[in-house]
């Protein structure tokens, strides 16, 4: 599992936010105006599809940065 791919897959769920904005340290829930409940569901579905890992809403809630979420997904792989 590669963090750069993860960031790319994460960014692909967004329509308004430019891909260049996304880094491992992006505090996605706080910094990204586009973030909402549908994006949360999309990220959960993306993780399921791309990594075959089931994460929950609470996993997203407990993550501050994209890297935090990446680490959760990696630990469940």
């Amino acid at each position, binding site marked *: 599992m590669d963090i750069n791919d993860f960031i790319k897959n994460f960014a692909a769920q967004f329509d308004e936010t430019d891909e260049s904005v996304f880094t491992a340290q992006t505090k996605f829930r706080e910094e990204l105006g586009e973030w909402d*409940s*549908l994006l949360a*569901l*999309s990220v*959960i*579905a*993306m993780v*399921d*599809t791309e990594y075959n890992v089931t994460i*929950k*809403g*609470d996993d997203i*809630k407990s993550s501050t940065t994209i890297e935090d979420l990446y680490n959760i997904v990696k630990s469940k792989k």
Partner: protein
Amino acid sequence: MRHNPFSLANKTVLVTGASSGIGRSIAVECAKMGATVFITGRNEERLNETYNQLEGTGHIQCTADLQMEEQTTRLIDALPLLDGVVHAAGIVTTVPFQFITKEKLEEIFAINFISPTLISQQLLQKKKMNKGASFVWISSISGTVCSFIGNAMYSSTKGAVNGIVKGMALDLAKKEIRVNSINPGQIDTDLLVAKGVITAEQMQEEIKKYPLKRFGKPEEVAYAAVYLLSNASNWITGTHLLIDGGYTLL
């Protein structure tokens, strides 16, 4: 006995999905109203918990996975003559539209729509339904009045349920068999929260959207099922009973 048009005395009722949530509550309330209840569900342990809550005697439990043809046939053959069927078995899959897959669609349609349809059809073919019997489908506000984020697949199954209720009701009217659905808003069951897709905070936000300031209770759906199974609703067929705490008023 005192006058009670809502009584289910001398009625035998099949309840699917009786191992949890709405199905369990319906089984329990039907038994309280005097029905002999035949319950089925996938989880043996939880089905037995429901069974132990049933008042009165003569009730039967049968663990079955209604996705397995053989188990369904075995269940139907084991059934006595029925005065009512409640289709409460169902799943929720929350996934944004662009992540829908053929497999996910087939799974949710199989459980929420195709199985209850085929069970109803077989019950009629095998002459298991008494004249004057009542079918009750648990539908939803989702897919019939509104929808919810990530709920497109679920909504489509309930839209299909509402459709078949109309057609079934018309075709079975000649046999004096009635077919109706109950369309609840969010009910306090473990269906959504247990899966963890929706967080507890999101649930609290959702509750605020209900004019009556709370989600429904399983027994509040069960009381509607009792009504639709009872002789009190003998002139009601093909209808969708909305129970949503006022949600769809806004």
